[in-house]
């Protein structure tokens, strides 16, 4: 047996971060989805949707600013993420469906929606499928482009694809017994910093205490180890981009222009030709992919201004 770990102070706070006022669960066809709310339950609702490998607590800086401005802010953990149930199958269409079920649990009236990264794509699809339920849409650095796909010759691409398929199938063979690696709060924050290199270490440690659980042998991220980065299948950036021109509600696309591993590298000129009639794009210099974490006040003000236009 290992020697017991020295006692560690396991509470973390972060300036401006505030946990939700209320939590509940909704049933998505047998999968329990964790839902969080900030602010007056009778106020105008706004739905926040996180990106891949994130969870609702990544809105702990943005949501309180919106709640304090008089909104009912609702966020949720996607299946397999945060405190929602792990599933046997993960697919984009299933995330869109889960989002619609969360939407149903908020209000039958059209509401404002804000999505980051993949969450932005999920909401663009949702807004296309249920246009009568979405009043306005904000996409936070979640409009994809082909820019971060390397330009390589065909034969090399085929070889890369073969290696990728082998790795993914090998992973599927192990998945029944996979467990996340335990560690200290600092170690989990260190691992996450590879995906979030621009974010403050104290912020990442704060996230660990929410997105990970304390097992006897250490902290483990709650996210399902079955999930892997990147899609397994024929998904293409154009398929999300093609949803943009069809949107009939006010749309705001925000881009963080600092290139990052988790981002698309999308430029305003990639988005502008696809903007719907009531759409606009705001590009932020010196801000990375996690715009709402780097600049919560600025993003809250952009959202509030956008909601004002949609009133």
């Amino acid at each position, binding site marked *: 047996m290992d020697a017991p770990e020295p006692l560690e102070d396991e509470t973390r706070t972060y300036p401006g971060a505030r946990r939700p006022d209320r939590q509940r669960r909704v049933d*998505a*066809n*047998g*999968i329990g989805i964790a839902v969080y709310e900030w602010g007056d339950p009778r106020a105008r609702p706004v739905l926040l949707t996180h990106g891949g490998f994130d969870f609702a607590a990544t809105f702990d800086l943005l949501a309180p600013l919106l709640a304090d401005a008089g909104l009912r802010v609702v966020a949720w953990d996607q*299946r397999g993420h945060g405190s929602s*149930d*792990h*599933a*046997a*199958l*993960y*697919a984009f*269409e*299933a995330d*869109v*469906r*889960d989002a*619609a*079920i969360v939407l*149903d649990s908020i209000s039958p009236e059209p509401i404002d929606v804000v999505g980051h990264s993949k969450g932005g794509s999920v909401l663009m*699809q*949702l807004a*296309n*499928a*249920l246009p009568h339920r979405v009043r306005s849409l904000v996409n936070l650095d979640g409009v994809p482009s082909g820019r971060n796909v390397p330009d390589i010759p065909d034969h090399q691409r*085929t070889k890369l*694809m*073969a290696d990728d*398929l*082998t790795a*993914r*199938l090998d992973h*599927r*063979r192990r*998945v*029944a017994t996979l467990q996340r690696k335990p560690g200290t709060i600092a170690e989990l924050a260190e691992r996450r910093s590879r995906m979030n290199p621009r974010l403050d270490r104290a912020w990442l440690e704060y996230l660990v205490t929410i997105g990970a659980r304390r097992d006897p042998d250490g902290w483990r991220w709650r996210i399902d180890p*079955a999930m892997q980065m990147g899609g*397994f*299948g*024929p998904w*293409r950036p154009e*398929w999300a981009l*093609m*949803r943009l021109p069809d949107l009939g509600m006010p749309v705001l696309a925000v881009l963080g222009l600092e290139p990052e591993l988790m981002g698309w590298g999308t430029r305003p000129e990639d988005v502008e030709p696809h903007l719907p009639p009531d759409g606009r794009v705001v590009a932020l210099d010196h801000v990375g992919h996690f715009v709402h974490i780097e600049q919560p006040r600025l993003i809250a003000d952009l959202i509030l201004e956008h909601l004002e236009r949609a009133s």
Partner: protein
Amino acid sequence: MSAPVLRLQHGRVSLALHQRRDGEGRPLLLLHGLGERTPDAVPEPLAAWPGPVVGLDLTGHGASDVPAGGGYYCEALMGDVDAALAHLGPCTIHGRGLGAYVGLLIAGARPALVRGAILADGPGLAGGGPTPPSPAVVTSLGSSPSRATPDPWAMLELSRDVRPPDYAATYARLASVNSGLDVAVAVVGVNRPPWLEAVVQEPGVVACSLPEALDRFAAVD
């Protein structure tokens, strides 16, 4: 009474692998179409296969598990087949409809374990077509708590998934380049959705009759 059923684990899903005929040599692995299940006996047109015949019930079908909340996509079903290959070793695959598409995927992804893939007509061959269909969200199918198969989420989602022709053609190319077989894929069906039309143009893919395909793949090492 009933033929032997082996349970295989793929992630959280327990799959049913049915032994339909014993024998020596490389098995013929049957992949059913959308909404189907492994047939109770070896179908007459496949009886000429010289070796054992097995059938896999894909996730949400036949005697395999129905997972909560859907989320089906063909690459997950390719993982089902990979679980069967991990148990059986090298196989020749016969796929109907959905099973033909999944059979093509696994032939490209595990070229050392798939010694020929026969793509036949059957339910779910076209999927949702070559480009994304109009968005639609269904939040409930009123499915029974009994988790009966076929899973209605499988029926819905696997008839809407996108099957781009160039994506399918890449798997055909991977199969023919990396299997070492002169012919890695045999198309025996009549229907040609866009993905299959692209596949049949690839080197290492032939269109032929089912008896010819069985003969051809029975003869390879």
